[in-house]
């Protein structure tokens, strides 16, 4: 708890001893960390390390069973109003894009502003078109998700999350389901977003992106944070044996 108080001053996310179980399986074993406003954090680790589960607890897609998570001064609890407020402030991008296939690209982006923020349709559409232009998809605004490529879909997904003007963006392996030639178009959008000052938590295997963009790299294994450090220290002088093994394996190819 002492740790918690020290970090609350300019922290937008505070996690204190977060635990989670899937039935008997202990997925998160006491995660304690904090993220500053505007920080870009990359979370990496072998599969099954709990990294996806961890960022999904931050907008409560996964419910933590012990410990505390405070997002922008609001503690995540069973209180539904808190969850709704936090979800409007936290955008999320998924590995499988999860665009709504029955809606056009434009409708995907305007849906939440219209229904949750109660924006007028015209206003929502002009904002959405501006966002689609920012991610380079404006000419596909009236197509359906199935008619555009994976990379384009993921950029739409980013625009859709940004449409709610979130303070924090969560990326859950945003490039893992993409064909190799499409990875960069998504990473470029994320780089641009990072430069704009957005707070970003990114689970990814793209170590080049991590080294270039991240303020801090968090390495997780078996449900716990093993090591966290700035990228140059993390890659060039890792302290932990498991981190060294992971880096040598990921950088080999």
């Amino acid at each position, binding site marked *: 708890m002492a740790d918690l108080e020290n970090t609350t001053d300019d922290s937008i996310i505070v996690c204190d001893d977060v635990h989670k179980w899937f039935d008997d399986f202990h997925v998160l074993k006491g995660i304690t960390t904090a993220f500053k406003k505007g920080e870009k954090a990359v979370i990496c680790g072998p599969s099954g390390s709990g990294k996806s589960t961890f960022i999904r607890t931050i907008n409560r897609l996964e419910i933590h069973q012990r410990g505390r998570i405070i997002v922008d001064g609001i503690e995540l609890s069973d209180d*539904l109003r808190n969850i*709704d407020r936090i979800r409007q402030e936290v955008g999320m991008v998924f590995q499988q894009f999860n665009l*709504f296939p029955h809606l056009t690209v434009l409708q995907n982006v305007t849906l939440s502003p219209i229904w*949750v923020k109660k924006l007028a349709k015209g206003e929502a559409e002009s904002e959405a078109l501006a966002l689609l232009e920012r991610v380079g998809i404006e000419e596909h605004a009236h197509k359906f998700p199935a008619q555009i490529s994976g990379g384009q879909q993921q950029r739409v997904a980013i625009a859709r999350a940004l449409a709610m003007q979130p303070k924090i963006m969560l990326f859950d392996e945003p490039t893992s389901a993409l064909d190799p030639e499409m990875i960069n178009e998504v990473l470029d959008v994320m780089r641009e977003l990072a430069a704009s000052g957005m707070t970003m938590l990114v689970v990814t295997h793209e170590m080049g992106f991590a080294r270039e963009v991240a303020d801090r790299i968090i390495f997780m294994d078996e449900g716990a944070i093993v090591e966290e450090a700035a990228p140059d220290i993390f890659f060039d002088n890792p302290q932990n044996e498991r981190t060294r093994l992971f880096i040598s394996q990921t950088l080999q190819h």
Partner: protein
Amino acid sequence: MEERAPNPVIKPPTESKGILRWLKENLFNTWYNALFTLLAIVFLYVAFKGILTWAFTEANWGVIPANLQIFLVGAYPREEIWRVWIVIYTLGLLLGLSSGIWGGLALRLALVIGAVGGGVGIILAFFPTAFFNRFGLLGGVALLAVSLFLGRGRQRLRPWVLGGWLLSFPWTMIWLHGFAGLPTVLTSNWGGLLLTLILAAVGIVVSFPLGVLLALGRRSNLPAIKWVSTAYIETVRGVPLVTILFMAQIMVPIFLPDFRIDKILRAMLGITLFSAAYMAENVRGGLQAIPKGQHEAAHALGLNYPLTMLLIILPQALRSVIPAIVGQFISLFKDTSLVTVIGLLDLLGIAKTVIANPDWLGLQAEVYLFAAVIYFVFSYFMSYISQKIEDALGVG
């Protein structure tokens, strides 16, 4: 700027196939297919010769026009039948306006109904019957056409037309039953096709949303709602419709002696509650096919449960189960014939009473065939519309 010559358009090779070639390729391409073809021709000849000979020489079709009134409206009094026309014209007006305003599927619906109505109307125009104006149906088709043109481009009529559809059921009921100075026609006199259509329409319109709610309930995280929905669905599915109709008829008056609920209303209730359970399972099948990611994406965007269901999950789930849902509608339509067991005279009930009439003894085949054709026309109509819905939504 220089005009560029358009790329030459190459048409696909036309495969001109003569009838003989088609016959050879599809019916006589091997010796055994040739054999089957010949056998089938012999079979069809024998079967159709019998049926056609019967239909044109032996059958006594006089039973149909002679009893047309009770086939269509049962014991509804002759001098009040104009009220049925009011209802038909109201629905025609609403359908015409809707198809003009929305176009697309509503337009297709109106065109099909207009075409069938027009065809039947022309036939009726040649058969002067005592009990209704023989040009009544053609008048309805004309009204449909006129309101279609009136509705075109009038987008601001939308809320009024939607409200009209909502009110069309009570409107139908008060006209048929009577209000203000109009003489009351007891529901026990409603019958024939009129009753069949009312029961089916109410059953379909009410059981659908009820089924959706039950399906959502069964998948709910709240144990009480989940348990109640599941128990309801499983109980109702474990009981034949006939039993439910009997229960509604006999048990309700026993348990609720102070409530005098109309017999037709009780039948509607029974059919609707029965169909809702099946509807729920159809919808649940669609809900289960929606990937978890769709729920997560909706939640992550801040959509609450009702919005997630209404905007994201149900539109996708329902379109994938349209065939099953329409199948359920069709079977509900045909199941309304079971109301004869509780003494209501729907189309099939009327058919039975006509056969039992000493004036028309021995004419089962004609009467049942007539009833079957009517059932088929409506069932096929629903099937056709469902195919068009699927086309319009780009599924299937």
